[in-house]
């Protein structure tokens, strides 16, 4: 550059950040509590070809606001594009891409396990180890409530599956930011 030319940005120095993060993302989305909001969010995901792994919807401390918590695979989807599309929905108030180290995330699952007399003790033992609760007992089955991270629930599933998993229900993760002192 000749003297006197102000500092310029060299084109070869311009870079673009990669779009895929390669990890699971939890998006915490505050929406106006209005009819059809969930349909708008769900419709957006299907139309743009974004796959939701889990989805949980519920009220918040403010009755006019609901929270949608959903998890997505950042190895498949450009999360930035997902959040920008979500922001275009007029009823979407706020989106947080929850940083894993700053977040407490929990999911609940109910397992109905076949529990013949001979393996009942073992299942009860698993439940204790996982700090799970037995919420229903019948002659042939037991129903166990497990709360924790998605990993913990999947681990529990691996333990009880060999005994005969009759049915399983999961809520999908919900998350909240950790407090700061």
């Amino acid at each position: 550059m000749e003297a006197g030319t102000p500092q310029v940005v060299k084109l070869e120095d311009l870079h673009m950040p990669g779009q895929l993060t390669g990890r699971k993302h939890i998006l915490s989305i505050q929406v106006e509590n209005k009819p059809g909001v969930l349909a708008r969010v769900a419709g957006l995901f299907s139309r743009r070809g974004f796959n939701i792994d889990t989805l949980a919807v519920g009220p918040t401390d403010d009755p006019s606001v609901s929270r949608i918590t959903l998890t997505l695979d950042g190895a498949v989807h450009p999360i930035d594009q997902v959040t920008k599309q979500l922001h275009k929905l007029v009823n979407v108030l706020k989106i947080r891409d929850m940083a894993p180290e700053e977040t407490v995330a929990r999911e609940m699952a109910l397992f109905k396990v076949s529990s013949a007399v001979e393996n009942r003790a073992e299942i009860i033992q698993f439940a204790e180890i996982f700090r799970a609760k037995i919420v229903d007992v019948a002659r042939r089955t037991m129903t166990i409530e497990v709360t924790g991270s998605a990993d913990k629930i999947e681990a529990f599933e691996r333990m009880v599956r060999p005994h005969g998993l009759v049915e399983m229900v999961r809520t999908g993760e919900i998350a909240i930011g950790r407090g700061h002192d």
Partner: protein
Amino acid sequence: MRAADTLMESLKAEGVKDVFGIPGGANLPTYDAMVDAEFRHVQVRHEQGGGHAAEGYAQASGRVGVAFATSGPGATNLVTAIADAMMDSVPTVFITGQVRTELIGTDGFQEADILGATLPFVKHSFAVTDPRQIPEYVHEAFHLASTGRPGPVLLDIPMDLSRADIDYQPRTEPVELPGYKPSTEGNIKQIRIAAKALANARRPIFYTGGGVINANASEELRELAGSDRFPVTSTLMGLGGFPASHENFLGMLGMHGTYAANHAMDKADLIVAIGARFDDRITGKLEEFAPHAKVIHIDIDPAEISKNVGAHIPIVGDAKQVLPKLTREYRALQTDTSRLDEWWNTLRGWQQEHPLFYDESSDQSGEIKPQFMIRAMHRATQGDAIITSDVGQHQMWTAQYYGFDKPRRWINSGGLGTMGFGLPSAIGAKVACPDEQVVCIAGDGSLIMNIQEMATCVAEDVPVKVFLMNNGYMGMVRQWQELFWDRRYSSVDMGTSPDWVKLAEAFGAKGMRCEDAADLEEQMVAALEHDGPVLLDARVAREENCYPMIPPGNAARDMVEAPRGSQVS
């Protein structure tokens, strides 16, 4: 006040002067209120026509276009127009009647879930559940439709609620929506970086789109391009945003763009995208698009940035606000303009060696070439008409050959590619701009799809001129079948029906026919001078192909030009 009357009051407060639509059972209260409303209602012949008329109105004037329809089939007939307005970011408000509240969900007569049906392609929609919402929703709808990235907003009003009696106070405060805050100013730090990148670019190109027109930023674009000798190309939707006759203009880019424009993108080291969205008709094969270029992307919609092509310098904002700042920052750098000499030598070389081309041998007398027809239309209208278009070859030829010098003169369906868009949008444009010449350039495949609107032109005294480029084919589909499907023509021949002159006359319009290139311009002038709607049936070369062309799935540099000397005559 009756809620339907508050609807009219609210529309009036939004400055509405003209609306389009058709009454029916569920919007009877609305149409009753319309009798006393102080704006013009254009009674179209099909709701789709009303929707496109509202689009044409908005695109010609920049004001929000409004269309009404009743519930059920009336509403579903609007769907194509709503989707079209979404794709092309046209500020529109669609107001549908809905069955009575107690019938909703029962499959009542003429019930359709229009809100659900249109969810994927509205900017926003409102289902009225309380009559007091009506005025509030109208103002919110207009705010949403016209600000940020414009788009269609739907307002669905059950019949019983529009008959209800409510307290009405005119709204005085501006609309506040907690989840809607478009950024318009552009980050000044990013703008500074962009200016410096421009100063360092050896092969820059401006790639401008419909956003420039929506932002009314043509002046600002010309300033920026003139701050150095920046070459400019435009998308189909952006034509007229930069003058076609300007020496910096390379013509349209994309599938049927010029050689110079497409090769400039291919060789550029810096692309400045302004209000454009890297559509597949622009990029061709995405992986091979602009392999040497860094990208500055200026857009009001953050979701467009890095959607298809990654941006190195993203700037979210309104072009009207961002461009002057970029011009100022760039000028302050006082860059040596001679660095662009080599680039311009290359560009001029491409322009000279590869201009738009067709066989002109029959132009003096004989068969009408479609390209000649567009040039004749330019001469007959002094290049200064509002041109609306249907979709197909005629649309591409107009985009290539008309040479739009001003914004809001070129109204077409770019994103959705809706055949039948031309005539109704011309009605909208003419209602918005009664003192301008409005010409619809039509294809015979497209025109028949909304020909009922000729009745609207006559009954409502909207003197639009339809110049029909009649080749007896759905020409663009035929061209693809010829080039890519071994000439196995399948359902593209339109035959000789209808007799367009008689059809125009049956509607009460003037019908004309032209079969000789020598007479064409004169007949166009006569059509323009006629006091009333005219349909001019111009019989053009049947199997002319639209070139240049990037074959689908190919890179821009692989574009194909018109075969020279060996053209089918």
